[in-house]
């Protein structure tokens, strides 16, 4: 196949591709000169391109009810970025933000003021309120992290720059149509394996990067009760694309996404005060998001980066919150697995509105909660569109 060398398929080399990808990307921000990476803890091959900081294109959204002391540890990695702090609980409490951070803070009064009656879709007394931060952000990317998550160390003992890894994940394509047994083929030191069709090697845009947790793993209440001492000590050095048609439990503790691509689908539902359920906010968002990503041809990655999760919440409190979810989940999963969106839905908003119709039609009979949730989903989209008028155009392509 000598003509392969003379005319290599332009889809072939991922290095050629990443050049093409960046220069053909619909978003002009990709063609900015690449800024040097904040830190590069990798000991990889010499031809590593530095990861862009994206400091003017990414907001860090943090829900909190206590304090933001954890930011001190993250300072070397987070300080260049703008923070959006969503203060849950008592709005009269003053949340102290460590010096030197550029931030905007919203408490419940702010949310009510900005959204008016539509504020009903934003949860109270639950970290689900964080999605308000997604709505008011003006940036292309969001990284969200819980206030009990700290910097983890990799097996060599180096601090893990979680944000840098999320950016790498989001800026490189996903491969949802065929499984690559060597995981993310775009990582340094990896590639597509024998048998991987060449026509699929260009990949698709990555919408979501789902990170993991060392120390306290994200278990549900029953598992926590049975295994209170279990800690996640296994560092799995992989990022992989979750295949099309496959659902997963999305955890909001360490999550990044392309807000312009998938933002309206990242509604974290009705949880907490006055609601029959808690700790299913991120799950709900993840299932809706995945159905929409599969429909629109976007990718979702999971794996690195790890953060260090320090706080195990009270399993009995969790059990009370999750209880209904554990039962409802059995209906929700077949619902999402069987959900199909019509061809006419070409924007995230139209997909989401269609999904809310289906939620009402099929899940309303499971519990009246889902009727309320379906309405809240529509309220969310209305509020999103009001605050983000330019994103009503079709995304992506």
């Amino acid at each position, binding site marked *: *196949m*000598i003509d*392969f060398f003379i005319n*290599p398929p332009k889809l*072939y*080399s991922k290095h050629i591709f990443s050049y093409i990808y960046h220069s053909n990307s619909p978003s002009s921000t990709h063609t900015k000169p690449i800024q040097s990476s904040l830190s590069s803890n990798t000991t990889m091959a010499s031809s590593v391109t530095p990861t862009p900081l994206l400091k003017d294109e990414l907001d860090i959204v943090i829900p909190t009810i206590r304090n933001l002391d954890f930011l001190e540890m993250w300072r070397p990695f987070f300080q260049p970025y703008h923070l959006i702090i969503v203060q849950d609980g008592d709005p009269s409490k003053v949340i102290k933000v460590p010096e030197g951070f550029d931030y905007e803070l919203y408490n419940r009064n702010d949310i009510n003021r900005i959204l008016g009656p539509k504020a009903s879709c934003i949860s109270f007394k639950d970290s689900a309120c964080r999605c308000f931060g997604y709505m008011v952000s003006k940036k292309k990317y969001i990284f969200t992290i819980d206030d009990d998550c700290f910097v983890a160390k990799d*097996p060599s003992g180096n601090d893990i720059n979680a944000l840098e890894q999320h950016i790498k994940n989001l800026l490189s394509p996903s491969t949802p*149509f*065929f*499984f*690559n*047994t*060597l*995981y993310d083929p775009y990582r340094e*030191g*990896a*590639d*597509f*394996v*024998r*048998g*991987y*069709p*060449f026509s*699929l090697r260009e990949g698709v845009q990555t919408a979501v990067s*789902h990170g*993991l947790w060392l120390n306290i*793993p*994200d*278990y*549900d209440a029953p*598992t926590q009760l049975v295994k209170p001492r*279990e*800690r*996640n*000590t*296994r*560092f*799995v*050095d*992989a990022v992989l694309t*979750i*295949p*099309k*048609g*496959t*659902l*997963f*439990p*999305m*955890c909001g503790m360490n999550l990044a996404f392309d807000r312009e691509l998938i933002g309206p689908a990242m509604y974290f539902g009705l949880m907490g005060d006055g609601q029959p359920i808690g*700790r*299913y906010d*991120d799950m709900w968002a*993840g299932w809706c998001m995945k159905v929409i990503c599969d429909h629109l041809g976007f990718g979702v990655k*999971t794996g690195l980066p790890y953060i260090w999760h320090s706080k195990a919440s009270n399993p009995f409190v969790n059990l009370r919150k*999750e209880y209904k979810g554990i039962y409802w*989940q*059995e209906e929700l*999963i077949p619902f999402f697995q069987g959900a199909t969106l019509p061809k006419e839905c070409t924007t995230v908003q139209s997909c989401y509105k269609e999904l809310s119709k289906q939620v009402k039609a099929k899940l309303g009979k499971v519990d009246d909660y889902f009727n309320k949730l379906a309405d809240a989903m529509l309220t969310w989209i209305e509020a999103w569109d009001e605050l983000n008028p330019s994103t009503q155009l079709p995304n992506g392509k």
Partner: protein
Amino acid sequence: MSLVTIDRNEVDIVIGAFRSDLTSFLEEWRPIFSRFHLIIVQDPDLKEELKIPEGFDFDVYSKSDIDKLVSSSNASMFSGYACRYFGYLVSKRKYIISIDDDCSPAKDNNGAIVDIVTQHITNLKTPATPLFFNTLYDPYRKGSDFVRGYPFSLRSGVPCVLSCGLWLNLADYDAPTQALKPELRNSRYVDAVLTVPKNSLMPMSGINIAFERETMGPAILPALKLAKEGKVRWETMEDIWCGLVVKVVCDHLQLGVKTGIPYVWRNERGSAIDSLKKEWQGVKLMEELIPFFQSLKLSQEAVTVEACMAEMAVAVKKGMGRSHPELANAADSMIGWVKIWKEVKSRDLV
């Protein structure tokens, strides 16, 4: 999760031999293999007698054994890389582990030698979870579990029938990739095994696999022969085809496929550039095979592996088999294999 015990009577290790002197290969694997029974199948084109060191419990099968057991028309099925399938056919044990003869034991991140037998059998003896993705990978591994949000009704999993291992050093890249990046070596040991989700196809590499022979035997077969098939992995697609078939069957019958650990260390052999010069048939074929297999639907009535194979063979022949003679042959091979499998098994029972 309690440790899985490996009963040596349940395991056969099948090696296809392309070179006659297996001494250094087997010496390297001695600490891991010596406890188990080996089935060594000699490539029919290899004329010299095999040299096998002392201390192993093994059986060797050569061209004459193949000719004796199967008809001459079927004997051609077992040439080249496909010779190892003869070993699967004659085995009487529950699990098969098969690796290429250019692989050595690998070391994990702690410097310990990877015992591929224990890991493969553990993968096969613990359930797979294809119906919902667990973000902490295999929940049955020690120190792991199902995460929050994983439906409880799906936590018992399904039987795992295929375990696909990986490779350090020379990974299973295709010839163009290796030729363009001659320095590319896989040095990343990813300490995970995970289930390949339902309806997701993947390229199965025959370099390092294990499977449950009693269930899957009829589906693990050498069907696809390329016109210029060679003796290096860059010049064959038989395992890739086999993997697509197996995955469709597994998805239909609610069985599981795992991928990840164990790793082997794969040594240099052959020239990617030389392989590139041959006809690039396999690579071109994949472009059509993937959509074909992705859209393949088996009927409700197909409730056994054999029935699934029969339906697939018909679909292949009617579909792509029309324009691609090698696929029509593959379909015939699938039917032929199921027949041979049945025959050999019934002879064993007599």
